[in-house]
């Protein structure tokens, strides 16, 4: 037997181990520091600083400190109370795969996650490059002139869009018209924000109400969800014209993944576009954190809220990033500031931008096409089972008018480990995403199937390939041969290696580079790729937006008439008849 320790067991167990890890000052250091300050003890120092009149009456009532291992075990025990179901709720939150390379090199890399807001530009170039990537991704996909470096969530971004519109438009009204088919949490936050500002929120709960509201003269802005929360894809072009005729602003809350297939709002002249980037690699996380985005037309850029990274030049005339237009912010303008937002969602924004880098434009589009195809397949099956869908257009979300069977369907879904979404007591919605599998489609069919036989029939895929009937999703988009989502060379735009530097030193710490190369390994000799990694980007001063506008117009020629949405049924048919 070993010699028993002279130390008490409690000391060896060292429950307060973490305190010494967290606090940098050792006991010996403390003595030295106190002598420099001229105080006898830490207690004496604190007593000489904190006014006696406000000192705590008693200590905090908290459980005693425990070790990291024990605390983690407790945390896991709590987490295990969660029931993990397949989520088809949608409503702005979708399943996504965080690429391992992003998880390891960004989300779990302290060089990225511990950094402060990049106030000192020269020491923060790598992070700001990632944020410029984010801004570029957003402007590319929305078709807008400018985007900021993230907002807190889609709902607050929509509320900020409302106040941006109020500041910017000529219309004198105090009303914002909000489509009732926006995400309910977005409507709620807009209502909260509007009230103290004396703004009225007019909810349009039907197409008729929407059309009527748009004819009014009392509004300064309208908000529509694209695609809507129930899954519909509206052609908003005529509405934008109507709203602009009233000198009001058109705000679109848009899904970035859908925008790889749909006509971007910037191309039908929307004024402000907001949304979440959650499905670009950030887990749902019970609601956050995720980066939202906000993009607007060029005329509004100087009152765009939030942090904005811009390209400038350094003392040697080379391009360099820094936070732009800081004078808009509250630390300068105080009560006249455009917003109170300071800290945003930089780390999730970096993840989203790297997700786009990782997949590249073709990869993003493939994911979107897969989601749309699964949705079409799911829709076809639900119709064959005799259900009525509320819309003949969809990207990832379907809504079934389930009537008095809605509750039973929800219960059946839960019994099968699936979360669906119930609205207005009689509508059941479900959303698909990057993580959706064939098994998920079968699962959803089984929820809606009235008997096993019908389900079996569908799983064999027989009888589903009637082209005439499959045309219900005719507004879904058919990818081949149609406009590519990039409005310029996005392959390069999403991978600018102009200023190659991660937050650490040296190429081995260049996380952006690691992600980039992992994604691009198979095409390293591609000329565009090589152009992208050329040493340094010579910025052409004086015509900053030239590259954007020129290519934007060229791309516009590729937009198909009729909103750019095309027939989609072939993929669904192929799969069903397999």
């Amino acid at each position, binding site marked *: 037997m070993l010699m028993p320790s002279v130390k008490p067991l409690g000391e060896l167990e060292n429950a307060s181990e973490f305190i010494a890890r967290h606090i*940098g000052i050792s006991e010996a250091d403390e003595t030295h520091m106190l002598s420099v300050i001229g105080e006898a003890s830490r207690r004496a*120092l604190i007593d000489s600083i904190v006014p006696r009149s*406000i000192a705590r009456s008693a200590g905090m009532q908290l459980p005693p400190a425990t070790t990291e291992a024990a605390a983690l075990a407790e945390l896991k025990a709590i987490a295990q109370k969660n029931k993990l179901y397949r989520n088809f709720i949608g409503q702005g939150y979708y399943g996504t795969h965080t690429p391992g390379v992003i998880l390891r090199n960004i989300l779990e890399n302290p060089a990225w996650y511990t950094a402060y807001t990049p106030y000192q530009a020269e*020491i923060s170039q790598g992070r700001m490059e990632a944020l410029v990537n984010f801004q570029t991704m957003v402007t590319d996909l929305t078709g807008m002139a400018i985007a900021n470096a993230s907002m807190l969530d889609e709902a607050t971004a929509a509320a900020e869009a409302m106040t941006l519109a109020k500041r910017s438009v000529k219309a004198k009204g105090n009303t914002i018209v909000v489509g009732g088919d926006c995400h309910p949490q977005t409507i709620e936050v807009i209502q909260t924000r509007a009230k103290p500002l004396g703004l009225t929120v007019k909810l349009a709960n039907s197409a008729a109400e929407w059309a009527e509201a748009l004819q009014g003269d009392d509004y300064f802005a309208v908000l529509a969800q694209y695609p809507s929360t129930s899954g519909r894809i509206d052609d908003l072009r005529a509405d934008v014209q109507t709203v602009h005729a009233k000198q009001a602003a058109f705000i679109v809350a848009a899904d970035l993944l859908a925008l790889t297939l749909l006509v971007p709002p910037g191309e039908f002249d929307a004024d402000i576009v907001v949304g979440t980037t959650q499905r670009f690699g950030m887990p749902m996380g019970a609601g956050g954190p995720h980066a939202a985005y906000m993009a607007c037309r060029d005329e509004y850029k100087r009152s765009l809220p939030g942090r904005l990274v811009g390209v400038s030049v350094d003392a040697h005339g080379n391009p360099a990033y820094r936070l732009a237009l800081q004078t808009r912010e509250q630390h300068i303008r105080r009560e006249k500031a455009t917003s109170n937002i300071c800290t945003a969602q930089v780390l999730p924004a970096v993840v989203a931008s790297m997700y786009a880098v990782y997949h590249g434009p073709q990869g993003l589009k493939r994911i979107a096409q897969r989601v749309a195809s699964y949705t079409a397949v799911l829709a076809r099956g639900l119709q064959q089972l005799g259900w009525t869908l509320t819309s003949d257009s969809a990207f990832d979300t379907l809504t079934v008018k389930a009537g008095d069977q809605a509750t039973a369907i929800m219960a059946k879904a839960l019994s099968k480990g699936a979360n669906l979404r119930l609205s207005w007591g009689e509508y059941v919605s479900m959303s698909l995403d990057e993580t959706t599998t064939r098994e998920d489609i079968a699962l959803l069919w089984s929820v809606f199937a009235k008997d096993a036989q019908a389900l079996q029939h569908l799983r064999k895929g027989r009888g589903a390939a009637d082209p005439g009937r499959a045309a219900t999703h005719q507004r879904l988009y058919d990818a081949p041969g149609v406009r590519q989502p990039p409005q310029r060379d996005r392959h390069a735009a999403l991978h600018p290696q102009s200023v190659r530097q991660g937050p650490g030193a040296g190429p081995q710490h260049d996380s952006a580079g690691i992600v980039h190369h992992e994604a691009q390994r198979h095409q390293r000799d591609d000329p565009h790729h090589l152009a992208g990694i050329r040493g340094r980007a010579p910025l052409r001063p004086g015509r900053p937006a030239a590259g954007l506008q020129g290519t934007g117009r060229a791309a516009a020629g590729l937009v198909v008439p009729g909103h750019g949405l095309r027939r989609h049924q072939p993929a669904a048919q192929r799969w069903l008849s397999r």
Partner: protein
Amino acid sequence: MCQATGYAGISLQPNAGSQGEYAGLLAIQAFHASRGESHRNICLIPSSAHGTNPASAQMVGMTVVVTKCDDNGNVDMVDLKAKCEQHSANLAAVMITYPSTHGVFETTVKELCALVHQHGGRVYVDGANMNALVGVAAPGEFGGDVSHLNLHKTFCIPHGGGGPGVGPVCVVEDLVPFLPGHATGGVKSGVGAVSAAPLGNAAVLPISWMYIRMMGADGLKHATEAAILSANYISKRLADHYPTLYASANGHVAHECILDLRGFKETSGVMAEDVAKRLMDYGFHAPTLSFPVANTLMVEPTESETLEELDRFIDAMIAIRDEIRQIENGTWPQDDNPLKNAPHTAATVLSSAWQHPYSREVAAAAASNPVNTKYWPSVGRVDNVYGDRNLFCSCVPVSELAD
């Protein structure tokens, strides 16, 4: 969080400090409205407050009335009293930061809270400086009615380069019914939702939970004391080189100190920004620049830095002070010296066309920075004005990359 602040209720919904502030003011507003006093819309804010305070007050439709600070940077109680009396019937709230943004524990805070309460107003204590309070003093005990916390400042959520943060809002008993609701998420309240998700940035909350669980009450209090100790150590050791702008009567500061660099403009043309940039050559990201006072540096070391790191920072600041002296005595011209040209890139230091009146070794701070921690930036000093005049916020297009 309630234990740390001394409040009765909390909402984790706000996903940043700004949203917590907004939710807190909404609670105050809803409280007044519930008592038939919707006319109370004046929000008193000391001139030293962070700009987010007035911006948030404006967002809830309150009218901001700015109160003065005295020469020591403290809230001018005479002016505050006068404004309270003037606006007594319409006083909604006062927003203070404690300890103050000037880094001082004001001795009159209890009196201030009582005064505002006397006039029917509620006291918002901005939690930005809770790092100096946890375990030591609680806003809910000394007169605060509402505070938001910044979990990314005080409870260990890493800053992420500018988020995610969490800005929970804590309130006293009678304001609990006015914490934010979330109908979509099933949270009932007289006040609406302030975030998309009912628990805001829920997925990072376990970080703060772990921190609290591993520190316990004693550890958290120790952390506060260590933060105060470190700030005072820096202030004291730099006193002969850079005076601390504001301190309490006995010369001590709270958990941060404002180093006054304003005198150098006259003697050498050096601005605080030049010192901030030069710090990169010594391997530091500069502390807060020009807040809350222009042309100063505000240092908040926190409890986590080791003595070695504190000394490294202090030694760098002293070495930079010596460099400023060489500008003051004319050795280097005001427009061509290691501070104005900072930060130095590898390309400039390696260039065979070196034409500055100081050596490359000085440029790289090689002699005065023996541990050789210089950060080699990929770019030199960035021109902010140029970028704002020629605003460009996307990746440089590939067509621009072609020669």
